[in-house]
């Protein structure tokens, strides 16, 4: 038997075709079809096809996350269409505008499991690799086609291993590692490839940090990303209500073939920043420290999970947001928001001057938090493309939540280690 990568095994399981090799194209049957705010487009496409019978309605998952709550009549009508469709078709996994970001909501609800093959109308569907699933983004027509036929064509990717050993210095986080990798490998460094993360740092990561990793792998063009399930994964799945006897974990074989192995040394890394207008335009925080900010956004499927909010609140403790700066915090999900409410994290953020919005994609998807001409935002999201947050003549920098919070205090891009050091002395 030839040793296999995770991607080979996952696509073999989803397609029922044995001994796949990279480059081969097969029909795969996904375990879950996620559609977010794009769901209405799928429904309209289904209507156009004149089909009423779905392949397996229980594999349909809809989450109203990008434009929530609706800000105009058109979006409200789109949401209403989705609600009616879910009701009519018996879609159990329908999550309305109060739920949060699709990826996080589905994982919290036990709908993402190790070894599964999952497609979503969102490029950051690579995030499902945080729980050992094969997740990949597709267009809305493909989700509609999967609703009807249960399948889609998939090319078996080559695989790349990224190994990160050692601990990180204080003030340096999973986001900084990913920004560094994206800067080094480029926006197309891993196009069409499956990425497997490993190494002592990765083994020690929380599921939240694994989400940050697998989410941002997309910014190098990856088809999917993967962290091997372990006790940390199992504990998360327990909490999500997934029975252990239903798990069917897939792990890559020893000796599988990788196109490349990339290594990064954790302890030597400093906080990183992606500079406008591409995610792979990455520098150390020192290179852009002092850049004036109008807004800081802590949100998105990359970095608005509970631990991200805690990190931000800790940095902000005893400080106020700089005069004139807008700090927007958008928890990734209702569950995370409730947890942050219970623990007092939200209160701390509010007392520091933050504006808390409802859970969802928020400003990352251009829903609130827009910028005027000439303005600059530091964001914990995953994209800084021109015009993504308002004016085409505005700028987005990307960072970790710690760097974002530290920068909100000073009103300029700030190395979080300076604020933390001050706090310790005080």
């Amino acid at each position, binding site marked *: 038997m030839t040793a296999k990568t995770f991607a080979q095994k996952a696509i073999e399981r989803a397609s029922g075709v044995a001994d796949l090799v990279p480059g081969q194209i097969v029909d795969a049957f996904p375990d879950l079809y996620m559609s977010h705010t794009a769901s209405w487009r799928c429904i309209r496409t289904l209507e156009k096809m004149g089909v009423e019978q779905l392949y397996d309605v229980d594999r349909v998952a809809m989450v109203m996350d990008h434009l929530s709550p609706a800000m105009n009549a058109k979006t409200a009508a789109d949401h209403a269409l989705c609600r009616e469709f879910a009701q009519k078709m018996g879609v159990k996994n329908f999550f309305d505008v109060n739920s949060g970001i699709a990826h996080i909501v589905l994982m919290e609800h036990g709908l993402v499991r190790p070894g599964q093959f999952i497609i979503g109308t969102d490029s950051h569907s690579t995030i499902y690799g945080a729980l050992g699933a094969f997740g990949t983004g597709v267009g809305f027509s493909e989700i509609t086609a999967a609703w009807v036929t249960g399948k889609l064509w998939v090319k078996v990717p080559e695989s790349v291993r990224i190994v990160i050993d050692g601990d990180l210095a204080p003030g340096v986080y999973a986001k900084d590692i990913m920004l560094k990798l994206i800067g080094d490998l480029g926006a197309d460094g891993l196009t069409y490839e499956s990425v497997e993360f490993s190494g002592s740092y990765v083994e020690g990561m929380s599921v939240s940090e694994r989400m940050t990793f697998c989410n941002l792998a997309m910014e190098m063009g990856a088809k999917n990303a993967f962290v091997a399930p372990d006790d940390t994964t199992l504990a998360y799945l327990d909490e999500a209500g997934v029975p252990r006897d239903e798990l069917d974990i897939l792990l890559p074989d020893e000796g599988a073939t990788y196109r490349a192995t990339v290594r990064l040394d954790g302890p030597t890394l400093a906080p990183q920043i992606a500079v406008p207008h591409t995610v792979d335009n990455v520098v150390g925080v020192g290179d852009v420290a002092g850049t004036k900010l109008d807004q800081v956004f802590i949100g998105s499927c990359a970095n608005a999970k509970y631990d991200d909010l805690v990190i931000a609140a800790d940095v902000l403790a005893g400080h106020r947001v700089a005069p004139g700066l807008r700090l927007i915090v958008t928890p990734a999900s209702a569950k995370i928001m409730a947890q942050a409410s219970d623990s007092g994290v939200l209160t701390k953020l509010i007392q520091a001057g933050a504006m808390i919005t409802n859970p969802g994609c928020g400003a990352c998807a251009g829903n609130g938090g827009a910028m005027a001409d000439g303005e600059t935002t530091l964001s914990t999201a995953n994209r800084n*493309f021109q015009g993504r947050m308002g004016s085409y003549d505005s700028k987005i920098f990307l960072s970790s939540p710690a760097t974002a919070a530290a920068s909100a205090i000073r009103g300029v891009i700030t190395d979080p280690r300076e604020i933390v050091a001050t706090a310790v002395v005080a």
Partner: protein
Amino acid sequence: MGSEHRVGGKVITFGENVNTDVIIPGRYLVSIDPAELAEHAFEPLGPETQERLRASDVVVAGRNFGCGSAREQAATCLIGAGIKAVVAASFSRVFFRNAINTGLVAVESPAAAEAATDGGEMWVDYDAGTVEVGGQTFPFSPYPQVLREIMADGGLIPHLMASFAGGKQ
């Protein structure tokens, strides 16, 4: 039938890593109408670029065209703008899928992309697997069978409807 596989005309060139937010900004995703979307294609690059786009037939770009979001409208808006084919040094994987699934010819050919000139002419025959530009012909690997069938029917949804009508699965 051969002529249906040959598309082309006037070229508009772009650089590397052209992302989906530049191709079609997120604020316009409330529409799926190709003509309406075309109004806003490449809006961040300004009206001059948009005007040239509408007067062109082939988009030529460097590496990683269509990187970023999974938004299918990044392909649809080009179709609405009258674009027949996109030839790039490479594509992001989601854009490539969306192009095929919406019936937009997408060809990866670094050499042809390099040889193209803004305002010049380019023709793509996706059945033969050739790109003609500046008197030169560049071969590329023809689409795999499954993609050819989708393209032949004008995209994924028309392809499925045709196969249902034909009683195939």
